[in-house]
């Protein structure tokens, strides 16, 4: 690697002592999100029951699904004495009630502060309870005070690969692994699967949220995930021809897979927008040796047309963007490609991508920072997760909700962002958002206060919206020096 910055490592001292309106979520939450994409899995947090409860509620609000997530229910006493017994008790209790396909155990700030070795504790359980040898257990260290949910997601993936992928003695032709980043939606994963199939690949997604958190209605209610990457699929990943690593943050996971089973990997940092997806398809053609599918050629045509249609509304729009590093990098390129200008850029954790992101260099910060950047940069659009709603309200600019969590809109995970089709849909949504706020010019729009005030009689239209002069002039003059 050309850079010495490792993901999740915060090298610069904070200039802010208080985080105002956090952008970041915790690493264990990312770990849980990963495990939820494995079939019949049950993530467990080794911490106080509040650690689990907060994550559970947040995941539930985003996916609008019941979320299986358990806790080792650490108390003050067990924290001091050591939580090994609680881990064992929790696993035994879970196995007494049912048999999950995978149990994924994430540590928390509480147990890591004490210095507990969660991987060691689980190894100890293995030794003590050989009768449960067939139950896949993956333990991962995810202290709340290090990194963000993107980091926890990756670390859970690495540990899963280390624990569960088989060596793979022979390569299965056309089988390809996709290490799916935490920013991909259910719709994104489905789309990617379609595209890979069209090139003749049989992909294995790790994790596969498109089969677990996609609104499945089961016959029986069980407190485990209902779908996702199966154990068998994970084991077979070692015999794939290639691995596509979606997002720089997962490079370590690609590396782990290479080490474990010798499958070479390609890091795909961008999937949004026309140039990014062109590059991706060239890569797929190269890997598969097959020609481009007709359907994608048509999709590309539609996208070019929609770019032309939408550029009237989006060109010159100033955007403040707050996302996890991988997501930020992809989105920043997409917005830039379509003529939007980044005036603010905030992220959650360190990443080698940050120095390569277009626009102002992303700062590690919170939504308070983003709000200040948006204000001073006169942003006309805020792009971040649902927590940006207060800032957008104060700034009186629209909020385009992306990332995690989206708790005040339905269908977040069924939105498509990647590929030609995702780019088209996103452009339409963005354009409509800006268009719907177009101000109607008034006689005094350009020289306010110099004419008699407009008097509205009884027929004042209800839809009359006060004109935001500054916003209007910004927008109509956008692009000009």
């Amino acid at each position, binding site marked *: 690697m050309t850079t010495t910055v490792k993901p999740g490592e915060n090298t610069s001292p904070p200039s802010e002592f208080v985080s105002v309106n*956090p952008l970041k979520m915790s690493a264990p939450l990312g770990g849980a999100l990963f495990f939820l994409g494995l079939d019949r899995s049950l993530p467990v947090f080794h911490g106080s*029951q509040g650690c689990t409860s907060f994550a559970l509620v947040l995941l539930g609000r985003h996916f609008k699904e019941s979320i299986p997530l358990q806790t080792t229910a650490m*108390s003050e006493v067990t924290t001091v004495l050591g939580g090994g017994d609680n881990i064992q008790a*929790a*696993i035994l209790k879970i196995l007494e009630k049912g048999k999950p396909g995978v149990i994924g155990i994430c540590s928390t700030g509480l147990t890591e502060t004490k210095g507990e070795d969660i991987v060691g504790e689980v190894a100890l359980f293995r030794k003590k309870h050989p009768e449960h040898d067939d139950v896949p257990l993956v333990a991962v260290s995810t202290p709340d005070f290090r990194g963000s949910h993107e980091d926890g997601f990756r670390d859970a993936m690495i540990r899963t690969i280390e624990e569960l992928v088989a060596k793979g003695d022979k390569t299965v032709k056309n089988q390809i692994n996709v290490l799916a980043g935490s920013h991909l939606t259910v719709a994104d994963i489905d789309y990617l699967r379609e595209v890979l199939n069209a090139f003749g690949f049989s992909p294995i997604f790790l994790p596969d949220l498109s089969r677990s958190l996609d609104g499945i209605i089961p016959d029986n209610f069980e407190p485990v995930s209902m779908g996702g990457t199966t154990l068998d699929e994970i084991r077979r990943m070692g015999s794939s021809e290639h691995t596509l690593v979606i997002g720089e943050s997962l490079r370590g996971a690609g590396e782990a897979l290479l080490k474990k089973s010798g499958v070479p990997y390609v890091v795909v940092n961008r999937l949004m927008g026309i140039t990014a997806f062109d590059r991706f398809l060239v890569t797929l053609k190269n890997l598969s040796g097959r020609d481009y599918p007709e359907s994608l050629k048509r999709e590309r045509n539609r996208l070019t047309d929609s770019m032309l249609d939408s550029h009237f509304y989006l060109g010159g729009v100033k955007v403040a963007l707050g996302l996890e590093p991988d997501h930020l990098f992809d989105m920043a390129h997409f917005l830039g490609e379509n003529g939007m200008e980044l005036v603010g850029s905030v992220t959650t954790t360190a990443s080698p991508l940050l120095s390569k992101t277009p626009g102002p260099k992303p700062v590690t910060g919170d939504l308070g920072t983003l709000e200040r950047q948006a204000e001073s940069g006169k942003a006309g659009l805020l792009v971040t997760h649902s927590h940006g709603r207060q800032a957008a309200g104060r700034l009186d600019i629209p909020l385009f909700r992306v990332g995690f969590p989206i708790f005040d809109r339905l269908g977040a995970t069924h939105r498509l962002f990647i590929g030609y089709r995702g780019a088209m849909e996103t452009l339409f949504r963005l354009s409509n958002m800006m268009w719907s706020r177009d101000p109607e010019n008034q006689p005094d729009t350009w020289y306010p206060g110099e004419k008699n005030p407009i008097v509205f009689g009884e027929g004042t239209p209800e839809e009359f919206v006060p004109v935001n002069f500054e916003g209007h002039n910004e927008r109509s003059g956008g692009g000009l020096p």
Partner: protein
Amino acid sequence: MLNQKVQDVFEEPACGHNKAKSEKDRKKGCTKVATPGAAAGGCAFDGAKIALQPIVDAAHLVHGPIACEGNSWDNRSALSSGSRLYRTGFTTDMNEMDVIYGGEKHLFKAIRQIIERFDPPAVFLYQTCVPAIIGDDIEAVAKAATEKFGRPVIPVNAPGFVGGKNLGNKLAGEALLDYVIGTMEPETTTSTDLNIIGEYNLSGELWQVRPLLDRLGIRISACISGDARYREVASSHRARAAMLVCSKAMINIASKMEERYKIPWFEGSFYGISDMSTSLRNISRLLIERGAPADLAERTEELIAKEEKEAWAAIERFRPGLEGKRALLITGGVKSWSVVSALMEAGLVVVGTSVKKSTKEDKERITELMGEDAHMIDTMTPREMYRMLKDAEADILMAGGRSQFVALKARVPFLDVNQERRFAFAGYKGMVTLVSELHRTITNPIFQVLKNPAPWTPGCRTTPLV
């Protein structure tokens, strides 16, 4: 010291639940030890934050790693009629360096930044597990900051691992008693000053009650803590009487304020029509005893008569759609019976109600309403709940958000009656809303449509177009 506090709040003499216990059980406290691998619910920090965050003009600063605030901020619908500062997420977002070197200095600087930038009348400082384990003394930091900045900084010492949400509510109450209540004097006092304790103004429920009190000339000196201003809480010790709304959460505030400031109180509920009326009667009785004009009683009766009549008439309109429908009510405490009468009045049959968090009196009320063979449910696993709904033993589930997907996956109507609900259900208006929401949900055609088999299921009778 924290241990002592925890013991103290468990020794609540006014708690009926507590009195019924043996000496030994009482020592153990009311928080059941959570079972690893089979626990649900929030922690003490969660409970403390819920209880105090509705003080809307204060800054609420969480000292801990990102999980405690980052995963949870702005997640409740406690509303404000003014300041929005309470919805701002403040945290020290502790990193590894803080864990190694201690986070006290970081915390102190965070308080300074908040005061300089947001100028709140007070800062509530929440302890969490990690700084508690490494020994950060938030009481000392709060004291130093209060002195340095001349602004009240209130330590709330309820790290998650000391217990569940309920304990956190109580510890939050202790923080108010120790550091806030009685520290300021009210600008004016009247003979009808009332404290409302344990009401959080979720979805604006306080505003379903407040106008009625206004009409009676009763002044809320402080609501602890829904839509409260710091000043109101700090000067609430001059009230004439108090009503305790959610007894499980803040009984210690009511009983200690009686002890310290001789403020009489009663426990009541705003849920359910008859309960609302009883509460209004009790409020006026207590205030008259403390010197309010005697005609308050009469005016209260007039108001009650009018409001009740309107509410029952409104509820009656929904009867045709609801008659005979079976409701399963999984909630806690007073709500286990206080809404039952309204449901029955609207023609519903309550096939079961949970009594997990209910007291002995709560249970007696249930028997009174629903008869000897009332189905009281102590605990119900999601699996059991799912089976019951799947087997069509109920037509609607009324419960907290956690059970929502159990009902929806069983394709059974669901109404959220707990904290994440979209609607306000308090007072007379609220009960009409509740019945109207029930009606809207139960009569939705999708539940019938969804029961139709898909074209590819064996036995599907959908015929081709001709």
